[in-house]
C-alpha cells in the first residue's frame, strides 16, 4: 500500500497529511510511531536512527482515531498517570478540564474525551506528536480550543496531523503533504487538495 515514502518534520512545524479514505494515512502514522513494524522503515530523529519501539517510545506520541484512555480511570487519574509531577501548568486555568476532573472516562462525551486525549499527548515531553483525526467529535468551539493547544505546543514539538476536517487542518498547519497511490507528495497550493 505504501512505498518509497520520505517524510520530514521539524520542531516548530505542523504538517498536515491529506489523503482519501484508505490511502494509508493512519498506517503511515503508526509506522512512524513504531506501533506497526515494517521491514526497511527508517525513522531518524536528530540524525539518530530510532528503529525500535523502545527508542521511539520516548520521542513520539500517537493519537489514534479511536479513544485509548482506559475506561476504568477517572480524568484526574488519567492526568496523574500521563503528566509529570513537575508539569504543574497542565491544568492551569483550563476551566473545562477542571469541571470534568472527577468524572470517569467512560462517562465522558466523545468531544470531552477527544479534547482530554489531545491535551494529554501535547503535554508529554516527547519531541513529536502524531495526531490522527484530532478534530473528530469536537464542536466548533472545542475545535478552536484544540487548534490553540496545537499552536501553543508546536513551539517545542514537531506535529503531524491528519483529519478529514480539512478546514481546521488548513487553519493550523504550516505545511501540507498528500498521500496518493501509496506515494507522498508536497502540496504547494491549497487548490491541489481538490481531489
Amino acid at each position, binding site marked *: 500500500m505504501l512505498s518509497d515514502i520520505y517524510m520530514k518534520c521539524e520542531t516548530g512545524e505542523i504538517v498536515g497529511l491529506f489523503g482519501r479514505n484508505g490511502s494509508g494515512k493512519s498506517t503511515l502514522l503508526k509506522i512512524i510511531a513504531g*506501533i506497526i513494524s515494517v521491514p526497511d522503515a527508517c525513522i531518524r530523529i536528530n540524525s539518530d536512527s530510532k528503529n525500535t519501539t523502545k527508542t521511539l*517510545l520516548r520521542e513520539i506520541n500517537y493519537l*489514534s482515531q*479511536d479513544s*485509548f484512555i*482506559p475506561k476504568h480511570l477517572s480524568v484526574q487519574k488519567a492526568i496523574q*498517570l*500521563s503528566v509529570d509531577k513537575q508539569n504543574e501548568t497542565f491544568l492551569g486555568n483550563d476551566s473545562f478540564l477542571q469541571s470534568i476532573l472527577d468524572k470517569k472516562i467512560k462517562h465522558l462525551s466523545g468531544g470531552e474525551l477527544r479534547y482530554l486525549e489531545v491535551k494529554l*499527548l501535547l503535554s508529554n515531553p516527547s519531541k513529536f506528536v502524531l495526531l490522527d483525526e484530532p478534530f473528530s467529535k469536537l464542536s466548533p468551539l472545542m475545535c478552536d480550543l484544540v487548534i490553540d493547544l496545537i499552536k501553543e505546543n508546536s513551539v517545542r514539538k514537531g506535529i503531524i496531523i491528519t483529519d478529514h476536517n480539512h478546514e481546521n487542518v488548513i487553519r493550523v498547519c504550516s505545511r501540507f503533504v498528500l498521500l496518493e497511490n501509496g506515494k507522498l507528495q508536497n502540496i504547494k497550493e491549497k487548490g491541489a487538495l481538490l481531489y
Partner: protein
Amino acid sequence: MKKLQNILDFFQSTLLINLAVCLLFVVFAGVETFFLSFLSLGFIASIFFKEKYRKNEYLFYFNNGVSKLNIIVFSYFMTIGASVLLGGIVFLIKRIF
C-alpha cells in the same frame, strides 16, 4: 515513577478477571487450585480479555512510555508478587489459628 504507576494501574485492571477465573476454579476444582489458576489461566484470561475488548488501551500506556510487551511482562511479575504475598498471609493465618 510514572512508568511504575502505569504498570501498577494495568496490573490492577487485570485483577478482576483473574480473580473471577480463580473463583471458578475454586468452586469447581477446590481451594488448592487457586494459586495455580491465579498464575496461569486467570492471568492469561485477563490478557485475552484486554486483547479482545480493550486493545486500544495499550496505546495509553505506550504514550506514557511503557510498551505492550513490557506492561504484560511486569504485570505478570506483579501477579507473582501478589500470589507470594497472599500465600504468606494464608500461611501465617494457618499457623496462628
